[in-house]
């Protein structure tokens, strides 16, 4: 789990939303894929599709590349193309403002921050715990890496699991 690469992804997504890109790509790793799925589940991004160095073809009706496109399909993963694969992330905008406002790393490569479920509950209620600031603004989320995959902080509290605090989305 490289937090260096994750930090690069956060910065890249921030830069991409600032220049209002519709679609952008990030390196294809399991961590990034899981985080993107969590973001998509929360509604911050519209689509996540694995593809080559060029953007995958758009869905005929949806105008965005989709992973379950029956018509065009997704490129098969082989040993020869695995190194060049990237994750193509569809970004969302609402009233000319990016939906994915700002991604900030909580853990750093030099300082990994873990949190327990009981403490995480207080973070959700707005209290600052250690290096993790409370969730006080509407539309704010924290993503954690747990033994059940990458989850949103509120889901962690619901399932009573703690973990490594990855990033915060505003």
């Amino acid at each position, binding site marked *: 789990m490289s937090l260096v690469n994750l930090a690069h992804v956060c910065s890249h997504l921030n830069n991409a939303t600032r220049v209002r890109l519709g679609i952008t790509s990030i390196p294809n790793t399991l961590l990034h894929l899981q985080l993107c799925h969590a973001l998509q589940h929360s*509604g*911050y991004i519209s689509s996540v599709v694995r593809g080559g160095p060029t953007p995958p073809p758009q869905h005929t009706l949806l105008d965005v590349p989709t992973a379950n496109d029956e018509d065009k399909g997704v490129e098969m993963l082989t040993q020869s193309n695995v190194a060049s694969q990237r994750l193509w992330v569809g970004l*969302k905008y609402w009233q000319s*403002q990016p*939906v994915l406002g700002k991604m900030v790393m909580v853990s750093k490569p030099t300082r990994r921050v873990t949190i327990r479920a009981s403490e995480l509950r207080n973070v959700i209620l707005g209290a600052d715990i250690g290096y993790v600031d409370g969730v*006080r*603004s509407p*539309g704010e989320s924290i993503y954690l890496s747990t033994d059940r995959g990458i989850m949103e902080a509120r889901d962690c509290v619901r399932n009573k699991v703690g973990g490594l605090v990855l990033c915060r989305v505003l």
Partner: protein
Amino acid sequence: MSFARPARCVFCSFSRGVSAGTRVPSRQFHPSPTQFTDRKPRFANFKARDGKTLEELSRNMKPEHFQPYTEKEKTALKEEYTPSQLAAIEAGEAAIDPKDMAEQFALRKDPMRLHYIDDFSTIEPGVDKHVRAPKSNSDYNATLKTDEDFIDDFARFFAELPSEATAADWVRFTETLRLTRGKEENELNPHSALVPDLFSPGESLSGKTKLAEVFETAEESFGRKEEITEAMKRLVQSTGYTPLQIASLSTKVLVSHSVVNQTRLGKVRRMYCLSIAGNGNGLLGIGEAKSEEASDAVTQSKYRAIRNMQPIPRYESRTIFGDVKGKVGAVELRLMTRPPGFGLRCQHLIYEMCRAAGIHDLAARVDRSRNPMNTVKAAYEALMSQRNPEDIARARGRKMVDVRKVYYSGRY
């Protein structure tokens, strides 16, 4: 009881004077008046359990609660209203079924209900849409008078004719005689497809305009002839508020100092003023002005603040939506949402702004520079930069209830 105290009458023990402590302390070290523990409260004590919410009230409303007026109430009404008005009131009361009344009084629960309670009988300029006068005087139900109507008119004219009638009476009658039935304006000033006049009534080339009716009514309501300045007139025209409403807004000068312009002729000193205006219920504006005269700068900045008033999003009409940041120049500040009863724990400038806007729970932190002018501007920017949870829910495509419950979780 101390033995040093003299014996007292038994009945005196019921009076206030027997309390052990002295009634009036001999020395007071503070200017505020002494508070006696047995003093009567100004307002009757009211227990929370005896209270009812609006929702409970409306839910438990039954047709029996809407009874016709009793004799006692009718006599009280008679003092206020004329018999014809009273008859109209009674007819109106009789026309509505108490069952309907009980149903209509309840808070709506259907999906098309509004998500807030509002008084729709008043129009709030800046929030609600402007009310415009009807475009034409047309009365589509107007009809020409019949012969019988004219006969009635003439009969009334002759009946009301004074004993020493002159030709002038006849001329006045013929000039004012109307030919149609319906709205008077429809006949006197009908809608026309022709090009309108260059000047509206009371307007001329010299630019003299008649006082608008608004000012006259305001003067009447004030009960005295208060001088209304040109600036006030323009403010009334541009905002749509009446002078009375403007007087009820809370305005305050927050920053004022003199500024100097260095020209080749010398230094030109002027007063600078920054004011805020708010209605204490979600509207806030800031205005700046410079003038040679200090008083002129104050009024100008206040009027500009009233013109700039904008609705500020408030959570539960008491605090803000989430923590927000503002930055103007070197002033960086953070406004933080707080639970009910927290109060306004912030510096005086932000306190005044919150008070004018009707925010009651808030904490603020001004980092870096604390320049008063930029603090006010940054706080305004921060207040306006709040994100509406409804917009967030729409943007993310997630249900509103989820967002609300999750982000405020019953605590904030």
